[in-house]
């Protein structure tokens, strides 16, 4: 192959790419499309479902979830649901690994969708319980197969209520099902 043809072929490749549509996404007017399973920064928390068990705090590798509970005096028949005084998630050190979401046995905590939580001060980088209570309930489908099976998309979908977000069915189990699970399975 003659000398110089390698360079010529390379230049033709570059010329072909001149004709391609640019792949740039003009942030902030446009945003890259995220998959519903994206592990975002705006955590979604359902107060009605949370019992204050602090499994999320235990699973977190960094130990950034701070939960302070007091006995609430509610639902003492069913085993008492804690009243949460403090539920702080420190975004400054969080790596959004999702282990806390994996941990929650009641499907009360879910990952969110955003990535724009940068703040000028480090003290602002904490999600407090008021913020969690007030934020929009658009959970990501990460580690939530029930949301994925419903083909839920947090970017475009409606907010999900606390009754619909759990993995349990809304119909009470029959006697046979209960027997199969708790007696025969042992």
């Amino acid at each position, binding site marked *: 192959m003659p000398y110089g043809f390698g360079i010529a072929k390379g230049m033709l490749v*570059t010329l072909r*790419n001149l004709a391609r549509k640019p792949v740039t996404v003009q942030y902030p007017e446009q945003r890259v499309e995220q998959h519903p399973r994206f592990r975002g920064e705006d955590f979604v928390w359902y107060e009605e479902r949370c019992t204050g068990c602090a499994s999320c705090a235990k699973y977190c590798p960094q130990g950034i979830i701070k939960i302070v509970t007091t006995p609430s005096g509610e639902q003492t028949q069913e085993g008492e649901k804690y009243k949460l005084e403090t539920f702080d998630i420190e975004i400054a050190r969080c790596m959004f690994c999702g282990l806390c979401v994996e941990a929650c046995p009641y499907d009360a905590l879910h990952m969110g969708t955003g990535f724009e939580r940068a703040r000028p001060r480090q003290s602002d980088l904490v999600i407090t319980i008021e913020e969690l209570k007030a934020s929009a309930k658009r959970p990501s489908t990460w580690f939530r197969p029930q949301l994925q099976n419903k083909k839920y998309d947090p970017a475009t979908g409606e907010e999900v209520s606390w009754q619909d977000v759990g993995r349990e069915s809304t119909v009470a189990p029959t006697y046979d099902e209960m027997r199969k699970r708790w007696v025969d399975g042992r």
Partner: protein
Amino acid sequence: MESNTLFSNLNEIYLGLLPESLSWAAFLGTGFTIILILVNALLMLTAFGTYMERRVLGRFQTRLGPNRVGPFGLLQPLADLLKLIIKEDLRPVTADRLTFFLAPVLMVTSMLVVVAVVPFGNGSFLADLNIGVLYLVGIPTIATVSIFLGGWGSGNRFALLGAARAVAMLISYEVPMIVSLAGVLILAGSMSLVEVVEAQRLPFILLQPLAFFVFIVSASAEMNRSPFDLMEAESELTAGFHTEFSGMRFGLVQLAEFGEVVITSAILSTLFLRGWENPFIPSDWQQVLPAQIWFIGKVLFFMFIFTWIRATLPRMRIDQVMAFAWKVLFPLALINMFVTAALVVVWPDPNPTYTQLWVMVGVNWTVAIGCLACFTRGLERHGKKPTASVQLVQMPAEVS
């Protein structure tokens, strides 16, 4: 000899405005007006060229270039200029005051001065020196010297080393550049640029492919552009002659560098592509567009070619650069000169017919392809071919 119609028209306008006794003032006024047009056009084209290069490079890389500052990013050169102006102008204590000041000034000046001879339209030029081509190759040598002044005057050991290497490269590349122009001069019969354009019955790019190739490569090296931009590479430890320049001093160096791209494109289009005329049809027929439009179009075309080369090729090492100049380009330029001279001896008529011209084209292209084949053979023997040195080996998986 084309008369300078631009000059005479403007002179008449000024003479009409001024009284008779101040005709020298009209002469001066005309000169300054044309200089104003030329310098402004060159600077505007440089600024626009930096913007265009960034956009075009972006499109080569399937991304957008700068498009935030102003509509379509057109004010980006202005933003760059403002940024450079408001930066602090540092001067090291060990720097020599005069040379440190002079170096960027000389670079820009030598670039601006070259545009005086370039004809950008039919009878539109500042001066038609009858040693135009000599002027074109002589003045950019000042830029070479000013690079060394900048490097030495910075008082920085690494700047001096970088400048010394840059000057060695630039001087070696001037030789093939000048020898390749000898072919053009032999065919044109005169060094005046206007005569060269008029002598191109067929554009010289067809008649002198070797000269075109050697000139465009040497000019790339003279301008420190890819693939010869080892002076600005961050992988080189010696950061080059402009290490200590900051603020507008650096801005002037960048201006000079990109201005040289524009100037070289203008020179290329004048010498090889018939300047202000339509390159596809003979000069006595009706030109489709005005002459200035053709000229600007050709300049932009060559700027695009330089950007295309920059987008594709990685840079060469300094010893490879020097070897390329002396072992490849210089022999090619000499061969081109001898072949052209032989053809002119065979047909000494200064106005050859079209048949003779097309025969010359055939001979020149055959010689060019022959040289390519010979160099390929030589390099193959040198052993740097991309042979298949990596093979696929089929190994069975060892199931333990």
